[in-house]
Each structure stands twice: as C-alpha cells, then as structure tokens.
C-alpha cells in the first residue's frame, strides 16, 4: 500500500486507482493505435530503430556532426568559421603543433603553449587521478563500515558532486585569495605570513588538484561503495575463520573483486582529468603564467581568445587529444580485461 493511497478508505481504493490510471491507459491505447500501423509496416524487429531514432538524431547533430566538422577544421586554415571559406592545408596544423627541437623543453617548440598544456595535463592527470582514486577508495571503505551517521557522511561526501564546477571554483577562489581570502585570514590570525596560493605556480597546481579531488571524489566514492557492497559477506566470514587479518582480507578479497569497478573508476577519472577545463578556467584562468594551462584550455584560447582566432590549430589539437584519449582508454580496457581473465 502506497503512502499516497493510505488515507483513502479501503473500499474506495480500487475505484480510486481506476480513476488515476485511466489517463495513462488512454495514453497507452492512443500510442498503441498510432504505433500499430507502423509496426505492421516495419515489422517488430525494426521497431527498435524507430525507438532509438530520436536519441540517434540528437547524438548525430550534437556529437557526430561536430566531430566530423572538427576533423575538417583540423586540416584547413583561415579565420573564417564557414567551411567554404577555409583553405585546405593538409597536415600543416598538425605539423606546426608537433614540431619541437626538444620535446622536454616547450620553449623550443613551434607551438610552445600546446606543449606546456601537454606537460601540465600529464602531471595533473597522474596526480589528480591517483590521489582521487586512493581517497575515494579509503572513503568508500570507511563508509561501507557500520559507523555512526553513515547516511549523513555519505551525503556530505557526495554533496560537492551536485555543485556546478563554476560554483566550486568560485567558492575555492574566495577561500584561496591573497587579499581577503579565508585561508590567508586564518594564517594571519595564527601569526603566519599570507601565501600567494593562486599566484605561485606550485601552489596553484597543488590547489587545482585539491579542488578537483574535493569536487569529484564523491561520485567515484559512490561507485566504489556500490562495488564494495556487491562483494559477498560470506567471503570475509570464511577468510576470518581462516585467520586472515584485515590487510590480507583487503589484499586478497576486496581489491581483486573490486578491480572491475576500479577499472571503470580509473577510465572515467582519467578521461575527465584529461578534459579538465571549466573548474580550472574559473579558478586560475590557466595561470599563473601558464602553470595550470591544460590542453583543453589551450584549444579554447586558440579558437576563442586569440585575435585573430585559429580554429584550424584548435581543431588539430582536439584531434591529437582525442587520439591520445582513445589509445589510453583502449589500453586501459585491454589490461583490465586481461587481468580479469587471469
């Protein structure tokens, strides 16, 4: 009995549900009448295409078409957005981006900002993904135990995920500002000197990772928590009887059985980290200097900030980014499947 019908006297409940359900019945009947001839023409098997068509159309317009257009832009040059006004230059844009005297020193590269973006993104991905996954795992393990206020803590850790990246960045910006920032006010209160958290390159890189971890960790904690809860309790009970300590139970039961979930988490976190943009754009704008300039922001600058804009270079950089993402994701999935098989 639902809460909704509890207040209705028992003898009227059936009549009430008939009344409530009537519009839906009529709707379904109407749909049936409308779709039946179509099903007759297409056949039952082909009806699947009819049902996925709306989604496919939206996917095609907003995902596939821009991908194709981006491909075209990547091999053309000029300031115009219109395809017919763009000059085909072959792989010139890719060559410009990839030309470097010394790949270890971005200043020797023709497109030095791209390589700074690559270097920054590499460091960010390695540190952000690793710290976040470890923290998410620890949090998930803690929240999987029977602790006081477990529901409350689960909400607390998940709450930042609900916030817009722009809001997250603005909150942290107020927190970290040199002038009138909350953290610096606290430092001053304890007799310490203020710190240029967003104007010092090392500090800026550090806080970008902290803020990203804080904002995203809840989502991955939730996935890992679901994975942990899917592990049968009987395995732990058997291990406990066999005398396995907490670490060994974690090492030989939790970790192997959590691996498929971990792979999903790693792939998702990796892709998201490589695509980092909005939060950092608001928090540091890519600065100080180019300390937190990541690849996507480089693409954005080329296409929308620089005057004249360079849509061709931006598109070529997007192609490189997409290729790297695809290779890394496939490699990660390959290794994950191989470890599952063994």
């Amino acid at each position, binding site marked *: 009995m639902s809460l909704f019908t509890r207040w209705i006297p028992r003898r009227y409940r059936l009549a009430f549900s008939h009344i409530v359900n009537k519009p839906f019945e009529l709707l379904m009947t109407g749909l049936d009448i409308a779709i039946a001839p179509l099903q007759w023409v297409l056949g039952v098997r082909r009806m699947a295409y009819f049902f996925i068509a709306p989604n496919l159309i939206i996917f095609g317009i907003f995902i596939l078409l821009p991908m194709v257009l981006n491909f075209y832009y990547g091999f053309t040059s000029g*300031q*115009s*957005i*219109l395809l017919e*006004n763009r000059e085909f230059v072959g792989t010139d844009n890719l060559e410009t981006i990839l030309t470097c005297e010394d790949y270890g020193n971005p*200043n020797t590269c023709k497109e*030095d900002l791209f390589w*700074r973006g690559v270097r920054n993104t590499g460091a960010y991905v390695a540190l952000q993904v690793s710290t976040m996954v470890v923290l998410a795992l620890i949090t998930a393990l803690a929240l999987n135990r029977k602790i006081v206020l477990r529901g409350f803590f689960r909400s607390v850790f998940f709450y930042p995920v609900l916030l817009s990246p722009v809001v997250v960045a603005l909150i942290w910006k107020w927190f970290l500002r*040199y*002038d009138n920032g909350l953290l610096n006010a606290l430092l001053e209160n304890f007799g310490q000197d203020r710190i*240029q958290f*967003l*104007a010092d*390159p090392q500090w800026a890189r550090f806080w970008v990772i902290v803020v990203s971890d804080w904002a995203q960790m809840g989502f991955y904690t939730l996935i890992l928590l679901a994975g942990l809860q899917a592990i049968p309790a009987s395995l732990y009970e058997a291990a406990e009887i066999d005398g396995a300590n907490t670490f060994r139970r974690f090492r030989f039961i939790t970790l192997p059985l959590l691996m498929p979930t971990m792979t999903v988490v790693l792939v998702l976190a990796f892709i998201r980290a490589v695509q980092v943009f909005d939060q950092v*754009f608001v928090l*540091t*704008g*890519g*600065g*100080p*200097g*180019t*300390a*937190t*300039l990541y690849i996507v*922001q480089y693409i954005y*600058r080329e296409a*929308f*900030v*620089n*005057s*004249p*804009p360079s849509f061709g270079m931006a598109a070529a950089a997007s192609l490189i980014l997409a290729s790297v993402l695809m290779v890394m994701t496939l490699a990660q999935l390959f290794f994950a499947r191989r470890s599952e098989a063994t």
Partner: protein
Amino acid sequence: MKLRTVLLLVLVVALAVPAASIMAQDQVELRIMWYNDGNEGEVLRDLLDRFEEENPNITVEIDTVAYADLDKTLQPQVEAGGANAPDIVRVTDTARYRPFYLDLTPYLPDPDYWEASFAEPVLNSFRKGADDTGIYGFPTQFTVTGPFINRTLFDQAGVDVPSEVMDEPTWNDWVEAAVEVAEVTGVPYAIAIDRSGHRVWGPALSNGATFLNEDGSFTVDSPGFRETAQMIIDWHERGITPLGVWVESGGEYASARPEFVNGQLVMYMSGSWQIAGFAGDIGNEFDWQAVPNPYGEGGSTGIPGGAVMAAINTTAHPEEVAMVMDYLASVDVLTEFTARTLFIPGHIGIAEAGVEYDTEDPSVLQALNTFLAEVPKLSEEAYGLQYSPIGFPLNTSIRDRLGQVIVGELTLDEAIVMIQETVDEAYAEVYGE
C-alpha cells in the same frame, strides 16, 4: 440597423486587415550588437527611442553582450549572415570584421560630412585593399590610455604629485612617489597596469620604443620596449603591484580597476574609458585624478583607441541602416551621447567645439580635461599601432608573453623572440608575404 452595423464592421475589417498587413510589411526591424563600458547602452536607447518616434516604420533592437563575449558571439553571426546577423555592430577590433562591413556611401545623404567629421586613420581602419573612399562606420568615442592616481592618498601621505612639481616626470619618478605614498598610508599596492599589451604600448613609446617599420611590419626588440617590460617585471618582484592582474588572471585581459576603486592602489595605468565607471563606483569615497602620461626618451604619449559602430553588409535593409547610422553620427546626437557617457568625442567638430559634460563631479571633469590634453600629444606611432591590422596580435602576444616572464617561465629575451614570431606570422597572413 443591426444589419447595417454588421456591414460596417465587415467593411472596416476588410479595409483594416490589408492596411495592417502593408504596415507590417513596411515595418523594418534592425538589430545592433552592443557592449557597455558604462552607461552608454542606456543613452543609446534614449537616442534610438527618439529616432523611432521620427521614423515609426523602423524599430531598432539593442542586443547587449559582455565585452569579453563580443567576438565569440559576433563572428559566427556575421559569417552566417541572414536573419542571425546584426545590422549594426559596436566593436573595438575594427580590422577583424573588415570583410563584413557595408559601404554606406550610396545611402548617405552627405558622405563628405563623414569624411570631414571623423579622423582618417579611423575611417581607413574599416577599409580593405585599395579602397580609400568607403564609409563603413564611425567612432562612438575616442579613448586615450593614461594613468589615474588616488589623490586623497597622496594628500594624506604628504607626497607631492610629480606632475605638479616637475615639468616632465618620468615613470621612475611616478613609481617612487607612488611607493612612498603606499608606504606612508599603508595601502597594499603602489602601482598597477592593466594586463593588456595595448596598455604597455604607451609607456614603451614614451620610453623610446619603436615598433612600426615602413612596410607595416613590427620590430619588437628595442631599448624602450625592454626598459618598459623590465619596469613591469620589477614592480612584481618588488611586490608593489597586485599579482591578481598579471599573474593570477591566466591568459586573458585583466584590469586593476577593483583595487583602485576600493582604495587599495595608489596609481593605476589604464585609460579614459574608466571615467564614467569611476564616477559611479568611487563616488565621494576618495578624490581621484587622471594625470599626464609620464615622460621618457620618446616623449609622453598614450595610445588612442575607442569603439566604432559599423554597418554589416548582410543586412536586408541597407537604406534604413544608413538612416540610423547617419542619425547617430550627426553632431547633435553624438554631442549628447558624448556628454552623457562622459567619453572623449571621436568627432573632430565636437572635439573642437568642446563638450559640456553632463556631470558636476570635479574628478570626472578633471580627468576628462587631462585626457583631452593628452590627445594632441599622441605620437604618430601610437596611431600607427592602434590602427594597424596586426596591432591586435602584438597586443595579445605582449600580454601573454610578458605574463610568462613575470612568473619565470620565459626570459625577456625569449619572450621578445616569441612576440616577434607572432607578429611576423600575422603580418604574413595579412599582407601575404
């Protein structure tokens, strides 16, 4: 009686419907893409309301966008054309939209008025190729870069304002005076300059830099430019300038306006477009002043600039667009626009006649007079930089590379090489060499 009433009604409807439809057909709606520095959108609306009263068949809508989003919004619209494109635009990067301007000459009652009223470099900035007669738009205002000071802080510190006690105070004189004021008053920052290459040009030219070559290309490296770049780097090393402007702001334009308006900054290098905003935001909190551009080996010059209004060639109503443009460019209307927006006029006749500004704020009047006095001092090279088709790449490249030098990612030598590469590429793209 009843039948007659019905017949009368039918007759009225029969006449009114076609008339309404003809009126609807004749009704022309134009769109202006606009951005605001201060109150100019409001003033424009008032002026257009009057135009619409005089021309009931034309309505003009103003689409206001943030300045930072102007180019991102405008370029796709003018390229796509059709109903999406605005009929008139207000822009600062005049060269970028050259392919899209509408030549108003055939539609204007008196094109000579435009030639006589607006400076040639501005009119030329719309023209492309061999065209030297087309009329495409006009400057809504003229701007000059220059510094402001917090006069109250100078008075509180008992430090002389350099321009009042010296004939030709240099940047060094100003910086040391501002540092002394900051130290005495406990204000956190002595000096700041907007994060913009355009703002660096003026001090660089005053310090003897030369950028422009005869063929229109640029040479970045010069003792004057190095001196100016090093001066800005030194401000950061000494901790006398807010890091939020050049360091924390990443890769885009940033101003030190919040610091100045909040009384945390002694001297602020910006420009005349700030006046109306300062009047509103500072009010009576403290006395502020504009001061002449500091002197150096190259004299004392700011950089001209300003926004322009231009007609777009995809418009379906060129005649009506020309009517609106001619109205807005007329002496009376432009005088009122200038007086109410507290801008320096871009119209030669209005500038010569003088403007009775719509304010009694002494700081505003002092600042306007100071900037007006800067206009005759502007060097030829300053005009050349501002209206060069490769001026914007030089502007943004100086901004970004100097930002990298300040945080230690590049040396000044490396930055100069990179800026030179950028402007050379831009030159090759524009001039095909």
